[in-house]
């Protein structure tokens, strides 16, 4: 197992956590190729989570292209996050942990974690920035309904960065009993690999599906990138297909890969929004799930090697794509996924595959607020 991705990754955590990471690494090494583990995940995926998710051709949204959406929004709980939460809950049970903690930004990972904890009878505590609790109120209510305790994080930017720090502090204090169910392909090794392997199902299915539907591979695969879990899951099985262009789309105000520099945050070295002294800077995005100054270390490596490209998308561009998909296809996308949709429309290629990582019900209040504040209401019929 690799603990690093080129010059990125690793384990930058206090000593207190190292033995727990060693234990997790050893357990993961056994499980990742274990037939019974895979069978359990497959069973949960097909009988509980709604896998496989379909590919949907969106002719009205993208009349100039053959664009397909990988419909992770149709997963139980409404986003790809459940792939990871289910898998890690199985790992936590094998480790004998009964208390689960998680961080959440948009609330989708928090909801997925609360869901699997309810399903398996595990105690669940979710750390969430108070600003994100305001932006994503419906998801807070869902987590409470599922029996999770949502702990507001009231310092710093009150968003995902601080929620993650606070979850790690809880883990340091309760490491004997607690499993940290991290929500993206970030954090100390072996988490980035675990999350990638659990999300790989997205790209594995999508690759088979598009071959079946079109008889060929797409020219371009597009996914949004906050921490980067839906993107790494979507990209991974296409990496050996050298002719397939991989495009990650970051929020313009949170472009850890586009405008970041190497640094250390939340246990790993990666590309970050940081200043020249290594102080982490604030990210800004209308989408709480992309509002994070870091990114998974494997994405930083994919950028450096040139295998994937990472493009920015502004709040307004994402909103225009959001409205356009609603009105042309009857699908309400998550604001996170709307970033991928916006850049996918720009791709001057015929066959393009986009990961629709989640549904946008949670975002309605935020969209209406933003548009009434800014006085803009993007008219999707005239936007591209």
């Amino acid at each position, binding site marked *: 197992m690799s603990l690093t991705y080129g010059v990125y990754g*690793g*384990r*930058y*955590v*206090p*000593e*207190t*956590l*190292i*033995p*727990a990471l060693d234990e997790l690494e050893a357990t993961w090494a056994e499980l990742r190729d274990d037939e019974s583990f895979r069978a359990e995940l497959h069973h949960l995926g097909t009988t509980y989570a709604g896998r496989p998710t379909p590919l949907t051709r969106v002719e009205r949204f993208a009349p100039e292209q053959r664009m397909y959406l990988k419909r992770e929004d149709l997963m139980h709980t409404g986003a790809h996050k459940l792939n990871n939460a289910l898998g890690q809950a199985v790992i936590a049970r094998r480790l004998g942990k009964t208390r689960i903690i998680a961080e959440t930004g948009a609330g989708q990972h928090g909801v997925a974690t609360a869901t699997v904890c309810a399903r398996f009878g595990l105690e669940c505590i979710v750390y969430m920035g108070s600003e994100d609790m305001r932006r994503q109120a419906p998801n807070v209510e869902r987590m409470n309904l599922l029996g999770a305790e949502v702990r507001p994080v009231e*310092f*710093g930017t009150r968003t995902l*960065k601080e929620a993650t*720090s606070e979850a*790690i*502090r809880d883990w*340091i*204090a*309760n*490491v*004997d009993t607690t499993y940290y169910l991290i929500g993206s392909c970030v954090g100390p090794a072996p988490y980035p690999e675990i999350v990638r392997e659990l999300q790989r199902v997205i790209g594995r299915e999508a690759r088979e599906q598009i071959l079946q539907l079109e008889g060929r591979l797409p020219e371009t695969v597009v996914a949004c990138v906050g921490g980067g879990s839906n993107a790494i899951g979507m990209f991974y099985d296409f990496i050996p297909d050298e002719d397939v262009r991989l495009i990650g789309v970051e929020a313009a105000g949170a472009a850890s890969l586009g405008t970041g*520099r*190497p*640094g*250390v*945050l*939340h*246990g790993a*070295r990666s590309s970050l929004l*940081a*200043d*020249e*002294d*290594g*102080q*982490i800077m604030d990210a800004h995005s209308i989408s709480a799930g992309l509002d994070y100054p870091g990114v998974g270390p494997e994405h930083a490596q994919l950028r450096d090697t040139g295998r994937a490209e990472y493009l920015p998308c502004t709040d307004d561009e994402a909103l225009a794509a959001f409205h356009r998909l609603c009105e042309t296809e009857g699908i309400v996308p998550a604001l996170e996924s709307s970033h991928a949709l916006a850049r996918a429309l720009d791709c001057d290629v015929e066959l393009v595959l986009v990961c629709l990582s989640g549904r946008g019900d949670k975002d309605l209040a935020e969209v209406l607020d933003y548009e009434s504040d800014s006085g803009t209401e993007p008219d999707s019929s005239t936007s591209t």
Partner: protein
Amino acid sequence: MSTQPEKLESDSQNESGSKVLVVYLMAMPDTPELAQAAVEAGADIIEIGFPFSDPLADGPVIRRAGERALAAGMRTARCLEVLAETRARVSVPLILMTYASIFDAHGWERLEREARAAGATSFIVVDLPADVRPELRRVQLVAPTSTDARLKLAATSTDGWLYLVTVTGTTGVRPELAPSLAPLAERARAVTDVPLYAGFGISTPEHARAAAELVDGIAVGSRAVEAAQEGPAELARFVGSLRGALDALAVA
């Protein structure tokens, strides 16, 4: 500039043969004055924290102190100046304590070189495990969760003394000394002869005395940072109370 101790070990026991007292201060413009007050009141070693925006191992007191320091412009270059100004006032070992991100951004070798030139005796990098970057000679931390193999690894690579984190948790004031210190000290003693100093959650003379029964020294962070915010006189009073508790133990 005062003489810098050649080796950390030389100061691991102070002149009276009493237990060693380590005091943490967040780097601020008034740190030199505060460090001098702490040393005059009986501190044997000063840790100077270079603030980091996302301090995973720190509880609320040091986290807020770090936020204030950053707001006051305490970036790496300014912190190095404060380190040099502190060195000009005190001759005890000075330890630069920070997070990996600060080293990574400044350059690992460059920050080590510049800090030593400014008077740093050693380093503590809270989120850098003992097996990573062994070329940076530093004080290693071990925790109640550390396996015996990791205790041995940290002890063999540590710079002068081993920092025993008393709790599974972050820095911060706690009502009682953690019961996990005794078994950790016992396990550490079994694998190494280096001095053992305990920190995290030691905030009162009673804690100091109880911890010093088990180890060779103590490190005080959050409560010292709080006292330092009240000024040098309050810091000196607090450090003096810890010194008194440790010295009483030596006499008893």
